[in-house]
């Protein structure tokens, strides 16, 4: 059945991207600012569209829409729009405006992620993944004249293509054993054969490895710090926040849905990934002197914690724990807001012509730019998981699910890793608040748009005031998780 209305949010983004590409092509670079704003608005509009519509499977079993996917898509679109507002301050500047292609590429990558989220078939999943990747490769290398940016783009391309190949190989094995590319085919096959064929297990392991590379879970994280460091700052912000939403939520769909009968295979793998990511992300981050690299390790540690939520199984029902998935769905927005906000503050600062990257450059920020420092400190405390800030709620529900699933060691490692990671978040706060500025005042605020300021203010308000009214996110996440996991 083809019912085009199911894909209305995707159509909105696609049409807007094409229209904006044309505007950019005809008006040239002058239109960059306009295109960027229009792109952000159309992403938000698509989020509104995504809220409505009916649930079901369309396009011959390729494409699914339900409340879970709706929740994740709205989150994704808001995060993508937020990341766009940071771009002009950094990529623009007074002399040259921002290139219009930037916003279009962000939109296309976002479109790929939306397709991934809605995938109900391995082919659809792969197509969405590649659309996302193509956009991200170009974005990473967006500052062509910068050596580091090109290097990062190339590195990202090589490793990502490699991981896609691994995943594709795994998918071909799954297809071979299931006899079809649909998620349902795999589910049916597993229901008929409780004993897993060895080839299927191998395929599953390959698919997991591909996913691990995409979400930068250790030990598949090697590319992350280098790419985050080399990519232009707004792209790093986008990379650190948005693709994680798509990949992690898709992982939950795949593992919690068709592959739940193979939990005995993927659960140990996921546990290893989670522990390695939490440990590595927490400890390695302590050594970083570059904020972008530090945030890369922070991303790895946070992904590790989120994986804990997916590992948890419901002992009573046998499926993926609703509480765990709910925890992940609470964790994702909280993490995205904090990450985007931190990069937003960095995008608002400069050292002469160069962007701020070294941690020491933030020295004395609380006195030169008290509000920016306050926003950054609130977001960092939230990332450290200190109550009453929003970050605590994410950790709380994910780890609660782990304890409920009797994964004691995992919960313990989770809280201990959060203490270690708190070390580097606190170090940044220490540099901003405790250290005095030495030498000349290097760090200046660049002129930024109202949207940029608005995003920073909203991010800070979100993490600080979340405790007063947590119900919308927590209830939304619960509904989404229940719809996804409970029949």
């Amino acid at each position, binding site marked *: 059945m083809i019912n085009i209305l199911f894909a209305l949010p995707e159509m909105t983004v696609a049409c807007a991207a094409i229209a904006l590409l044309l505007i950019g092509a005809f008006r040239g670079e002058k239109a960059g600012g306009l295109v960027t704003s229009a792109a952000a608005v159309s992403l938000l509009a698509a989020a509104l569209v995504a809220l409505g519509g009916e649930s079901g499977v369309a396009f011959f079993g390729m494409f699914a829409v339900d409340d879970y996917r709706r929740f994740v898509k709205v989150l994704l679109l808001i995060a993508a729009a937020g990341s766009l507002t940071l771009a002009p301050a950094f990529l623009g500047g007074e002399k040259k405006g921002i290139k219009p292609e930037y916003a279009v590429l962000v939109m296309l990558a976002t479109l790929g992620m939306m397709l991934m989220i809605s995938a109900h078939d391995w082919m659809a999943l792969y197509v969405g993944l590649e659309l996302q990747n193509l956009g991200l490769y170009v974005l990473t290398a967006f500052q062509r004249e910068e050596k580091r940016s090109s290097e990062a783009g190339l590195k990202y391309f090589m490793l990502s293509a490699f991981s896609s190949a691994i995943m594709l190989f795994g998918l071909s094995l799954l297809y071979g054993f299931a006899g079809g590319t649909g998620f349902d085919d795999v589910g049916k096959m597993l229901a008929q054969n409780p004993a897993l064929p060895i080839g299927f297990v191998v395929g599953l392991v390959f698919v997991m490895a591909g996913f691990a590379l995409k979400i930068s879970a250790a030990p598949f994280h090697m590319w992350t710090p280098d790419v985050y460091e080399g990519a232009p700052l707004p792209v790093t912000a986008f990379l650190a926040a948005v693709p994680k939403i798509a990949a992690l939520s898709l992982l939950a769909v795949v593992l919690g849905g068709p592959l739940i009968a193979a939990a005995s295979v993927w659960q140990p793998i996921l546990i290893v990934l989670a522990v390695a990511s939490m440990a590595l992300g927490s400890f390695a981050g302590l050594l970083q002197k570059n904020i972008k690299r530090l945030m890369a390790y922070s991303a790895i540690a946070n992904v590790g914690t989120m994986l804990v939520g997916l590992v948890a199984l419901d002992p009573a029902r046998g499926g993926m724990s609703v509480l765990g998935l709910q925890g992940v769905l609470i964790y994702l927005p909280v993490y995205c807001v904090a990450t985007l906000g931190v990069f937003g503050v960095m995008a608002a600062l400069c050292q002469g012509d160069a962007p701020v990257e070294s941690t020491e450059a933030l020295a004395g920020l609380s006195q030169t730019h008290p509000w920016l420092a306050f926003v950054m400190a609130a977001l960092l405390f939230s990332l450290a998981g200190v109550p009453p800030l929003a970050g605590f709620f994410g950790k709380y529900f994910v780890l609660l699910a782990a304890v*409920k699933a009797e994964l004691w060691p995992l919960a313990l490692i989770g809280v201990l890793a959060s203490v270690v990671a*708190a070390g580097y978040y606190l170090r940044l706060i220490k540099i901003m608040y405790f250290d005095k500025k030495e030498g000349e005042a290097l760090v200046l605020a660049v002129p930024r748009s109202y949207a940029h300021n608005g995003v920073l203010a909203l991010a800070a308000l979100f993490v600080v005031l979340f405790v007063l009214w947590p119900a919308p996110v927590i209830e939304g996440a619960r509904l989404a998780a229940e719809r996804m996991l409970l029949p």
Partner: protein
Amino acid sequence: MNNFPLLSLITFLPLVGVMALALLPRGQEEKQVKLARLIALAFAGVTFVASLALPFLYDATAGGFQFIEKAAWMPTMGLEYHRGVDGISLWFVLLSTLLTPLAMVSGFAVKERARSFMAALLLLEVMMIGMFTALDFFLFYVFFEGVLIPMFLIIGVWGGERRVYAAMKFFLYTFLGSVLMLVAIFAMVIKAGSSDMTALMGFAFPKEMAVWLWLAFFASFAVKTPLWPFHTWLPDAHVQAPTAGSVILAGVLLKMGGYGFIRISLQMLPSASAMFAPLVVALSLIAIVYGSLVALAQTDMKKLIAYSSVAHMGYVTLGIFSGTREGLDGAMMVMLSHGLVSAALFLGVGVVYERTHTRAIARLGGVASVMPRFASVFMVLTLAAVGLPGTSGFVGEFMAMQGAWLMDHRAAAVAALGIVLGAVTMLWLYARVFFGVAEKAEVKAMPDLTWREAALFLPLLFLILWMGLYPTTFTRVMDSDVKHLALSIQHLGEEK
């Protein structure tokens, strides 16, 4: 009056103050600082006055939790906004509301970023009161941990030379203890199916599980109290913190550990507490003797008082885990008394530091001859810290010792030795600082207490004497709850 949300008012009034400070319009620097101080003090003052209603309205004969507030917070997750005070937590709330405005007045000495300093103190007050009145575990944890952020900033931004080290150590040390508690909270909530602390108090956890839970909570509270050998963060934090920070740290934050031991370890895990009591008693005795001995060797006034705090907290844990009613009463009184006395002592050190910019004992001497008023105030405080009859210090230490005696004569003997050592420490400190001839030029130039400073000490002195002369005012309120608690523990002891 029954439905009036008094606790919420007391808790969130300071938060309104924080917002008011944040929204303060930019203006002339000096004027703005003055206005900020005024606003902060006004909010803290009103909060204190409002909290005074608690002991009057609390029905001591009935006991139990009163002023209950319950509202849905995250209903599907079983989390509630549930608050209340009983005779035990009531006094801690008052201690917090009393010490915050006093700390603020002493914090007028802070010139740099004064507005943020006041905001941090108000935020700290919110967290402290919230923690003492939380009856939902989630809420409890949020407030318990929330204390870390403002205190971290107070030490780190406005502290002394090694403030960065002290602030980091304080934060990470306590954070590490707390996250273990978080895992224990998860386990309890899942097992009992509720995060309501009053419900958990009656829940019998399986023995083996209770042991692990108890250890996890112990990790958190032993660091917070602090109990030897988990005390090493305290001297650093105290020495580096500004005076106002030390006052709150010693006066209220240390009590969070003792409160946690009573509220959670004792009330929710009584059998495990009985099992581990000998261990805690041993550690407490070590803390009492060791704290006093180390204090003797200190050359810095603040560090000396910090170590004597470790010794005093030893009496608290000794009393709590003696498992007797006398011991519990004593622990409560030591905590209240220490809250007042140590706060006043740190204010005293602040007075000296402001004048001479030193806390080194060797650089002082003969202060009594130039500051007679201050010398008499400090004398009373020293005697109260020593536990002279007639001061608040005596009542608590005596009752804690009584509890220890009932449990084990040897423990009481060691604790008595500690009292002698404590007296030596404090009196020697007094002798070195105040007696003798004022020879050094900076000492000679010290002016006596100003009215502002005197106004800080007077209410504390008054309360110290009141508590020493007529402790019934204070014990009356907590009597029924302490009796109830002691009975439930003794019952367990007999079973064992």
